[in-house]
């Protein structure tokens, strides 16, 4: 199996799905000739032509709106938002139409599309290029929100998203794009949307993370395990909506302790939702409050300060240790 990074893995998923299904279409700003500002769609334009890999005008609501029309009429658009910071322009079309057509028409009309976007911070970018707003998208029923954490699950989840019958917001942690490589098989591989992955089993404490936080969390866990000999279970959430409550509940039943690592501000984020579900389902198993290691409720600072705000390995280690000791 070749070792590739997340950019290459996503490219592989797109290339293979496009080769397989002529209805799969890629569109967005600079996705064609340029191959995308992060080079995620590189080579697709040459291979599949400009009818299938479309450099659109600069209008995110437009991109989403035409994608909905394409999806309603038999195509499978994979739209790119150049950055999640500009993706809010498509919320009205997502909320108002993509998420509703199935329910509106009792299943007669559906909108199978994927909207990919790089998201998250720590890449020394300009304003609007560093937020982590997965929770905003998760407030819309009828929308699936998927976040891979590494090359292999990015490839498998994107294939699943393209084949999924519903609109999927696919958020790619840009900090991970070229951060590390993994073995990714050439042969088809998919993962089920709506399922979390237990990346490591353990009985003493559960750590839940997603996106760019998963890699760093993994390192923090290794460190604490080495230091303390504790057995820590690590869950990579992967699907924000629908969320896999059962995997979380089962883990808490076993460990009784939970740490959640979230790149986004603390309030109204995914960690709030996970905590609420733990309350609803397994509160009585808890031996300590759920520990939420998060960013703060501030407007995302420019890059000069941002690393001070995003959870880092030390904060995660400390959070795990405090919760083990509670």
């Amino acid at each position, binding site marked *: 199996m070749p070792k590739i990074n997340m950019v290459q893995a996503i490219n592989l998923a797109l290339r293979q799905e496009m080769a397989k299904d002529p209805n799969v*279409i890629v569109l967005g700003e600079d996705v064609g000739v340029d191959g995308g500002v992060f080079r995620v769609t590189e080579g697709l334009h040459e291979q599949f032509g400009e*009818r299938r890999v479309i450099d*659109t*005008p600069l*209008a995110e*609501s*437009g991109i*989403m*709106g*035409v*994608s*909905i*029309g*394409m*999806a*309603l*009429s*038999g*195509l499978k*658009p994979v739209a790119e938002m150049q950055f999640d910071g500009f993706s809010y322009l498509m919320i*009205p*079309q997502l909320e*108002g*139409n993509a998420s509703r*057509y*199935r*329910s*509106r*028409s*009792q*299943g*007669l*009309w*559906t909108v*199978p599309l994927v909207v990919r976007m790089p998201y998250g911070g720590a890449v020394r970018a300009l304003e609007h290029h560093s937020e982590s707003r997965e929770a905003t998208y998760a407030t819309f*029923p*009828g929308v*699936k929100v998927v976040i891979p954490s590494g090359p292999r699950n990015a490839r498998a989840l994107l294939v699943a998203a393209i084949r*999924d*019958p*519903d609109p999927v917001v696919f958020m790619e942690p840009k900090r991970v794009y070229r951060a590390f490589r993994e073995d990714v098989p050439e042969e088809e591989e998919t993962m089920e*949307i*709506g399922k979390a992955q237990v990346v490591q089993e353990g009985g003493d404490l559960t750590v839940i993370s997603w996106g760019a936080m998963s890699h760093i969390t993994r390192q923090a866990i290794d460190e604490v395990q080495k230091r303390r000999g504790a057995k820590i279970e690590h869950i990579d959430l992967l699907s924000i909506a*629908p*969320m*896999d*409550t*059962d995997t979380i509940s089962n883990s808490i039943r076993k460990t009784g302790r939970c740490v959640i690592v979230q790149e986004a501000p603390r309030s109204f984020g995914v960690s709030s939702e996970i905590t609420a579900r733990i309350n609803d389902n397994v509160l009585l198993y808890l031996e300590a409050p759920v520990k939420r290691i998060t960013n703060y409720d501030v407007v995302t600072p420019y890059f000069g300060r941002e690393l001070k705000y995003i959870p880092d390995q030390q904060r995660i280690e400390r959070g795990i240790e405090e919760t083990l000791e509670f």
Partner: protein
Amino acid sequence: MPLTMAGEFSTSYLQILDESGEVDRELEPKLSDAELLRFYRAMYLSREADQRMLKMQRQGRIGTFGPGTGQEAAFCGPTFALTDKDWLLGSFREPGARFMRGEPLSTALLYYNGYEEGNALSPDKRTLPIAVIVASQTLHAVGIAYSMQYQGQKDSAALVFLGDGASSQGDFHEALNFAAVWQAPVVFVVQNNQWAISVPRSKQTHSRTIAQKAIAYDMPGIQVDGNDALAMYQATKEALARAHSGGGPTLIEAVTYRLMMHTTADDPKKYRTEKEEKDWWSKEPLVRFEKYLRDKGVLDDKAKATIEAETRQYIDEEIKKFETRTTFKPDASFDYVFGTTHAEIEKQRAEFLATLNQGGADA
């Protein structure tokens, strides 16, 4: 070259059947008697359905809706020009157009009575459900048009209705722009009925016409007498022919008037004069079309009476069908969140059903 010309543009206006019902022979479209009658019936049904629905709304038998009265030519004309290979997208003020595409009145009533089951037109009819978010549907039309182009369905274009108010939305601009760049087979029909709820056309946009907005995209644009069924048909026919032959999109402005309230929740007396309404009643589309048909010998009193009776009968039957419907599955909303099954949704469904059984939530 100091101060020179960078471009010259113009916008034209089409009328075939004037306010008094006189036809321009040169421009008159060639339609058979049967076609003309079908056309007239569609407009007549739309008008009659409005009247009956208004009564039903006042009696609490359906919820809020927006009547199309006065605009029958503007929405039936373009629809009459479509084939069933073309797509139709609308907002909420084209009742007759939806009937023409095969939507039974009973289904429309279900929609206005608060059931998604009222959006039941099969996708093979190529007619999308009502779009409430104004102008949002214009982009869907462009996407569908792209699909047709991509799939090589040369006989298929997308026609999309919107209002003068909707033309202020960013989505409308983005739709026109995408359509023009892609030369997509799509026809935009703006029903300029002079009002967006209480906001008059003059406060909506500063341009003399809405048709001239096409110039911003180097797209053909034409202003049409929207109360002239023949002109609306003809302008659309030409736009569709262009679209089908790879000539790209067209913008049609239908100059018409919303003769009734915005919706049943609205009171036009608050913002416009009865005189204005009366003036426009004198230009309304049905009387003029009827005169044309009578002059042409296509319609007489007897034929008119038959149409009236048949329409009434159809409406009666449909209302009965609507009112004797069986009840609907209460938990349908859980069926259609996603196309896949998820544990959390199913858990909540069970909770919902248990609550219903406990007699909560007006079971």
